[in-house]
């Protein structure tokens, strides 16, 4: 739980602990200038296709860059403008659909991709203006809900766009397929090169990323950027200082929308087709989680959050590494939350001991209680089979274990002292059980359930994210 500055204490003194910790953790990162950080990131990403020609790895790198761009765009409206935009994914979808319409056989148009990007940039900004217009009259939750309506309108339009007054614009639920690959004035970039993912797409995305990152950085350090921050901290004061607040809000929406729309075009150029369900709320929540984890208002944070969350989500999909990722994340969470840190070792040792006892007891009562193991188990699962008691047919035990685990986790956040450590032991063991029986077999759902829990967790423990500036509420 975050505590505000104490009454009667100097603001800086009240935040001293936080500032000291921040400098200890991130002192090095802070001292590296922004351009060097960007350069290091670009070089690292650019090197990946040279090191490996694994198509999967390169496509993950491409998708990570797409999410970095999305998080950067969202940061403009949410982080700098302080406007909660829940219709953001509609701009992304708009860009993808515009690309699909302008360069596919749908209407026989095959425009060159840089031209499409420029068109999308302009149209995206106009759409951003339009969706941002309600911000003149509405603030806060009301604005959020209206942008959510705008998103619903977008989804409703593309899902039913196969029959708009007799014109088939978007292909309805079937979407638009057979899109042209990215091409620069006739020089085409085939999506797959000798049967594997064409790593040149990584470079296209990287160029766009650097352009967007640089442009947004410059804007943030200009008059407009400073005005946005004033707007975010106190709209009324900003207005009284003579700032055109209505216009600034529209600009924030428009910049975010352009970035999202261009990213949508880039995304579409790689995919076989565009479909309404791609642009789901799941995507919206994912981008929000990235931005919030990284730190709202920080460009480096947005990129960091996108990389961490996307790599985490991808790793959970892979049965070989998902177990490692999960258990490692649990240990890291314990290290972050438990004080003193050596208690982590005690708790883990107790959990291991508890596990062997539980496994032995369960095996002694009934052989079948420990007989089960997932059929396509990864290395971690096989190693844990001697420790986690998995019944031959967990069946009804699964929902019960899941609900009890959540209840236990919640209770551990409330109790203190020795009781918390004592409670953590069965909780961790149960977490291992739930992971092996419920979570690991359904990675596609698990990763999003975990993402939801992560959002709540960040909001409660560290709402300003890893790199974000902690905002001070002025009372």
């Amino acid at each position: 739980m975050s505590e505000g500055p104490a009454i009667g204490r100097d603001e800086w003194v009240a935040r001293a602990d936080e500032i000291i910790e921040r400098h200890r953790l991130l002192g090095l990162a802070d001292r590296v200038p922004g351009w060097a950080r960007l350069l290091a990131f670009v070089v690292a990403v650019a090197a990946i296709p040279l090191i490996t020609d694994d198509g999967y790895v390169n496509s993950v790198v491409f998708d990570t860059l797409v999410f970095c761009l999305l998080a950067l765009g969202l940061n403009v409206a949410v982080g700098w403008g302080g406007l909660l935009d829940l219709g953001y994914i509609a701009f992304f979808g708009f860009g993808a659909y515009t690309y699909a319409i302008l360069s596919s056989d749908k209407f026989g148009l095959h425009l060159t991709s840089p031209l499409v990007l420029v068109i999308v940039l302009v149209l995206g900004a106009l759409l951003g203006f339009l969706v941002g217009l309600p911000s003149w009259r509405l603030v806060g939750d009301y604005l959020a809900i209206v942008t959510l309506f705008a998103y619903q309108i977008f989804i409703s339009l593309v899902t039913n766009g196969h029959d708009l007054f007799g014109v088939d614009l978007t292909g309805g639920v079937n979407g638009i397929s057979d899109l042209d690959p990215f091409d620069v004035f006739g020089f085409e970039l085939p999506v797959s090169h000798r049967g594997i993912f064409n790593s040149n797409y990584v470079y296209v995305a990287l160029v766009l990323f650097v352009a967007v990152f640089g442009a947004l950085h410059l804007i943030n350090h200009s008059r407009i950027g400073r005005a946005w921050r004033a707007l975010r901290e106190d709209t009324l004061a900003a207005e009284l200082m003579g700032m055109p607040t209505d216009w600034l809000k529209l600009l924030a929406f428009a910049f975010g929308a352009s970035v999202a729309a261009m990213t949508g075009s880039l995304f579409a150029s790689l995919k076989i087709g565009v479909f309404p369900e791609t642009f789901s709320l799941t995507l919206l929540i994912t981008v929000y989680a990235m931005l919030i984890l990284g730190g709202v208002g920080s460009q480096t944070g947005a990129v960091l959050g996108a990389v961490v969350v996307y790599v985490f989500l991808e790793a959970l999909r892979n049965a070989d590494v998902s177990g490692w990722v999960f258990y490692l994340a649990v240990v890291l969470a314990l290290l972050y939350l438990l004080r003193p840190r050596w208690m982590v070792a005690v708790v883990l040792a107790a959990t291991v001991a508890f596990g062997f006892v539980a496994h032995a007891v369960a095996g002694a009562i009934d052989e079948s209680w420990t007989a089960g193991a997932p059929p396509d188990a990864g290395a971690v699962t096989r190693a844990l089979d001697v420790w986690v008691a998995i019944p031959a047919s967990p069946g009804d035990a699964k929902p019960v274990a899941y609900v009890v685990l959540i209840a236990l986790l919640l209770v551990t956040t409330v109790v203190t002292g020795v009781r918390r450590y004592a409670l953590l032991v069965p909780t961790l063991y149960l977490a291992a059980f739930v992971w092996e029986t419920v979570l690991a077999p359904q990675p596609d759902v698990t990763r999003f359930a975990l993402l939801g829990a992560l959002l709540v967790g960040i909001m409660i423990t560290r709402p300003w994210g890893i790199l974000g500036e902690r905002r001070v509420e002025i009372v």
Partner: protein
Amino acid sequence: MDYDKLFQTLVNSATLGSTYALIALGYTMVYGILKLLNFAHGDVFMIGAYVGFGVLTATGGALDPAFSPWLVLVLMALAAMAACALLGVSIERFAYRPLRDAPRITPLISALGVSFFLSNSVQLLFGAEHRTYDTFNIAGGTLYEPAATLGSFSISWLRVITVVSAIVLMVVLWYLVTRTRIGKAMRATAIDRDAAAMMGIDIDRVIMFAFLLAGGLAGAAGVLFALRTDLFPQMGFTPGLFAFTAAVIGGIGSIPGAMLGGYLLGTVEALTVTYVTVWVGLPVGLSNFVIFSLLIVFMLFRPQGILGRPEIRKV
């Protein structure tokens, strides 16, 4: 003029409106007290529907009930109400209470996270497939038989039950809020939380009570809604969004406003699906387009809703 169609549309709007009103009450009570848009409320509603399904299955299912099907229905509703009330209270305790003094955007994102977590958890445990209560077989199909007929018009038991139980619940709520001590405390807290705390009102208890009521109503709404539609993990989103809108239209924070807004929105939706899309010449699937466009226009011109008062910003 096809009066039969009009009558059916109006009956539809009353049933839809009842569900929306029940959910909208939950939004409005929580918003009134905490100024929090509880995104997770739609998913609490969804879990209510699933709890009802669990009770129905445990008592032998629609075809082979262990005892009277009417008792099973009552039991489903009560179990869903109890479970959702508990769920609502725990969400408040663990996801919102630590953020009570944080900037308003913080609990809002926490609520998004809870919503996402709940729907994905249900999908983890029970799968993404659509299920139904198999209402056609409950009590041998009695629910679909007309309860009343007037000339060529008829109205089925299912719709009568939905509307009547919603109204009963709303009367109970109205009584609790206007005639009991805790209801009075709720209203006081909604007007000014700090002043209420200084008058000796236990704010935590009042907020907990609001979430309890909100959850209970959402649970009942979940069972009533699922009698007519499929159950799936994301089923809470659209009704949740509509109900929130209903609360906003009626004037968020106002309890009669939420009821009014619920029925109004039910009517708008039913009329749009039946008539407006036909007049404009759009496919029925685009009814959402029409509804949401109307809502944006409404929000722009009267964000405080029909019965709400405009929020005055103090500097």
